[in-house]
């Protein structure tokens, strides 16, 4: 293991290298470009044995990854925002075809207006595509999660693609301390990709052809639903395995921090969760019973963990770094859905924050906690609130 100081993007590159990705097809986009530049360096210096395919768009990148995966190769790609949304059609294909592609997405705001800063809408908008989704809070987590994501995705009972996301600039371009594990240790943890079925001229099959209304399209789709269900336990199982080998865990599906005895808990994903930890400590020192539940895995949706948490607390504040124009932000709507039939419900409020890269500072978080704490006595004030929104109009 090598202790180093690297960016989130380089952590991605090291993750792909250690996982021995065999085929990489990617298209550049800010702020992802250094992921692939670093991989190109590895290939040039001979320390990574991968086939790099230069493609003309992100749509082609995903198409190349899907088919490479179907020949039995371990594939990797990286993108962000407009690149991710350009791939949308292919993302649905990847999960439908049951190809365990692993992708890093850097969460960047969607245009117009033009922005390169952190925002979760790009990946949240892909929640219907059948991909497993991880939201990372540190560069260490990015590196580790690429390795565990392959193991989960390639399991015979899962066979679904995974994306892990990291906030633009806050992780992608920020240098943090990262332990880079040894290759032979990773090889022990992650065996080569061995799919049951693949393109083989000696044993030909028809992949993804016509399926009628009466048989069996609905059943193929149901299989994916079952896989996503199984992924819940699989992620926890692989997480434990990784911890016993490498000494690190990133909290499974819902990463709880000081929720024991908490009355007010905030749910958040990405780097703002890291900032919230600091504020939780400060408030706890001041005697407030608060905690953080970091939403690490959004797909599969951790309904069980959220219900267990909800039973023990009075107020649950859900932070969304995106807005889905539905009933509040996407995380809020789905958490509300999971709790609807649950007998024990806390006060549930949506805080829409950090849109377009607006900085979520310790002060911002403190303000949210203060509001959430006040709801204990007076009940819900406003169900959906946009934080630090500039009003003007005088």
């Amino acid at each position: 293991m090598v202790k180093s100081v690297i960016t989130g993007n380089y952590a991605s590159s090291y993750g792909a290298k250690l996982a021995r990705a065999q085929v990489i097809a990617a298209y550049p986009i800010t702020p992802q470009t250094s992921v692939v530049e670093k991989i190109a360096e590895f290939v040039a210096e001979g320390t990574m044995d991968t086939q790099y395919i230069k493609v003309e768009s992100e749509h082609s990148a995903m198409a190349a990854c899907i088919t490479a995966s179907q020949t039995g190769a371990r594939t990797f790609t990286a993108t962000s925002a407009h690149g991710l949304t350009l791939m949308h059609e292919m993302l649905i294909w990847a999960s439908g075809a049951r190809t365990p592609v692993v992708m890093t997405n850097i969460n960047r705001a969607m245009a117009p207006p033009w922005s390169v800063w952190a925002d979760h809408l790009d990946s949240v908008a892909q929640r219907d595509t059948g991909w497993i989704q991880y939201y990372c809070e540190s560069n260490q987590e990015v590196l580790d999660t690429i390795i565990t994501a392959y193991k989960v995705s390639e399991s015979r009972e899962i066979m679904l693609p995974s994306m892990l996301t990291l906030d633009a600039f806050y992780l992608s371009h920020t240098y943090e301390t990262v332990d880079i594990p040894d290759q032979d240790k990773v090889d022990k943890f992650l065996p080569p990709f061995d799919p049951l079925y693949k393109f083989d001229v000696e044993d030909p099959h028809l992949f993804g052809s016509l399926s009628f209304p009466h048989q069996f399209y609905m059943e193929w789709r149901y299989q994916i639903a079952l896989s996503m269900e199984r992924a819940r336990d699989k992620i926890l199982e692989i997480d434990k395995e990784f911890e016993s080998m490498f000494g690190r865990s990133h909290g499974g599906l819902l990463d709880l921090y000081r929720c024991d005895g908490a009355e007010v808990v905030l749910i958040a994903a990405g780097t703002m969760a890291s900032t919230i930890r600091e504020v939780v400590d400060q408030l706890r020192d001041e005697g407030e019973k608060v905690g953080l539940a970091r939403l690490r895995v959004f797909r599969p949706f951790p309904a069980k963990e959220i219900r267990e948490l909800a039973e023990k607390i009075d107020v649950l504040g859900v932070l969304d770094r995106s807005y889905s124009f539905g009933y509040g932000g996407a995380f809020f709507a789905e958490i509300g859905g999971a709790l609807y039939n649950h007998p024990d419900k806390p006060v549930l409020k949506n805080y829409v924050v950090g849109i377009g890269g607006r900085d979520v500072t310790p002060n911002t978080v403190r303000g949210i906690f203060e509001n959430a704490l006040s709801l204990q006595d007076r009940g819900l004030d406003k169900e959906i609130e946009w934080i630090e929104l500039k009003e003007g109009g005088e």
Partner: protein
Amino acid sequence: MIEIRFHGRGGQGAVTAANILAIAAFKEGKDVQAFPYFGVERRGAPVTAFTKIDDKPVRIKSQIYEPDYVVVLDSSLLKAVNVTQGLKNGGTVIINADKKPEDIKGVQGKIATVDATAIAVKHGLGSKEAPIVNTAILGAFAKATDVVKLESIVESIMDSAPAKKKENAEAAKEAYDNTLIGGR
């Protein structure tokens, strides 16, 4: 936690300076974070970069608003940018200038100066019009503050400078020896 803000112009190495400082502190056993002010950069445009240093894990992932120290790689920025915005009381500003601290106009607080441009040019780092002053200014930073030792800065330069490692290390040492500290 100690927070340092760097001001430079695109191409002068402000972002690398923040990173080299982070690695130096890391070698002393600290946890660190270093990042540029995220934006679309081009040569000559004002660039801001940050380093956070702490004994415990740095968990706050937001911008720096109240730095403990400010480092200015290009004194022409003093007219264009409010480099001391948010600087904590008693904080030090380290400036690349061919002037004594008392002669720096428009900057309050503790000031340290060094002619990093001359030192950089002397060691063949960049040109007179476009000097690479980042390693020299880090030498000055080590002298003016007790955040990191000069040896750690030199070790960090030897590890991560992409070229002219020895010249960069010499520039840092020379700047360390020639830094003037003063101001109110």
